[in-house]
């Protein structure tokens, strides 16, 4: 029985760093609001990665110094950002053409659930009194060449967010390529969930039990 409380789960920053490490030099990337935003802080030195912001910016830079905020220069979360040399501004239809036309290499999104066929649920809990809001999530989910998800492996009450089929309303069908959680990295392949990394101290069998879904072991050296 795994001692879940004392597991060396990845921090949010650890997860962000792991996602960032997988983004190649020269990639065009959109980081969704929330957890994925952290990825920007860990982009590896020596790689030039161009960040896209849905509200009309390619070449997004880090947050400005305090006092230098320009409220006409914000990201998808409406926080002030900067523009790097080489940046370009454009209008919303052009910005979403970049997504929907398949020009982005990678987008990173948060999620409530990901299914074994790569369905994504991240916009709506389905709760009756919730105010639904979708923003650009559905466009990003289906538009980028690869959609990565970053999320905790389990909900607060211990339910796996990797599921055979999403119970929450879908954001997109068969769109997720890979999931980064605080416990593992899991690819979505034609055969289903394939684990490529597990944190130290957690076995594949324990991960499979916690996840409650069929997992395949795709770690290098596994058979």
């Amino acid at each position, binding site marked *: 029985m795994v001692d879940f409380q004392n597991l060396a789960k990845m921090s949010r920053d650890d997860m962000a760093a792991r996602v960032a490490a997988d983004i190649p030099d020269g990639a065009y990337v959109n980081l969704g609001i929330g957890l994925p935003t952290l990825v920007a802080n860990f982009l590896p030195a020596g790689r030039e990665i161009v960040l896209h912001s849905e509200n009309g910016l390619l070449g997004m830079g880090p947050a400005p110094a305090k006092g230098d905020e320009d409220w006409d220069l914000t990201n998808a979360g409406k926080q002030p950002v900067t523009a790097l040399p080489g940046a370009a501004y454009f209008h*919303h*239809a052009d910005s*979403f053409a970049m997504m929907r036309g398949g020009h982005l290499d990678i987008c990173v999104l948060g999620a409530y659930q990901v299914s074994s066929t790569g369905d994504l649920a991240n916009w709506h809990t389905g709760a009756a009194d919730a105010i*639904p*809001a979708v923003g650009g999530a559905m466009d990003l989910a289906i*538009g980028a060449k690869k959609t990565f998800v970053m999320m905790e492996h389990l909900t607060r009450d211990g339910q796996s967010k990797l599921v055979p089929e999403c119970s929450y309303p879908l954001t997109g069908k068969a769109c997720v390529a890979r999931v980064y959680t605080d416990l593992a990295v899991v690819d979505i392949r034609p055969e289903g969930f394939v684990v490529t990394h597990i944190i130290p101290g957690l076995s594949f069998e324990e991960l499979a039990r916690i996840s409650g879904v069929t997992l395949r072991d795709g770690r290098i050296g596994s058979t």
Partner: protein
Amino acid sequence: MINKICASAEAAVADIRDGSTILVGGFGNAGMPFDLIDALIAQGARDLVIVSNNAGNAETGLGKLLKEGRVRKVVCSFPRQVDSYVFDGLYRAGKIELELVPQGNLSERMRAAGAGIGAFFCPTGVGTLLAGKRETRVIDGRTYVLEYPIKGDFAFIKALKGDRWGNLIYRKTARNFGPVMAMAAAITIAEVDEVVDLGALDPETIITPGIFVHRVVPVAPGMD
């Protein structure tokens, strides 16, 4: 002579009738045409349909228009904001209609209206609640959903500079929906920080050509 410059925001919105559909630019507060919205609040038109990315922040701009009970329906992608309590209350009380549209569909549907497209097969939203009962079609092995244009009776947008022909340039990401909404409305009203002489804008860098703009209202920059 062409002179699209209006003396005031009040004059620019004077002919808006009850029941109009108004496209309102901005992404959060960036690019939000606050002066035009304030003029519309003072003007009194009711039963409005507002198409905008968000549904107002706190009690300014769209939030104020909503609070005054003047909006029948909001068409937007992201109503829920940390300070969208006016919309949230109206929605929970069943006092306002919401058409939730993915952000890319919102912009593409307005572009379609501006470009004369009757409808288009769209990759976003397929298999989701937001596709509803829309027609779908498989093209080259991929499923698409049929989406229709969104046209405005009016568009309210915010730009940095404009001239008397209605040519506009914007500032940074405050550009956002402005150029698309300008195309999609019967009457487009732009509030600008500065009116410049005809010919002062470089023809290479004009973002919205004047053909899409009907009224230009100078407003005090940074007064929002």
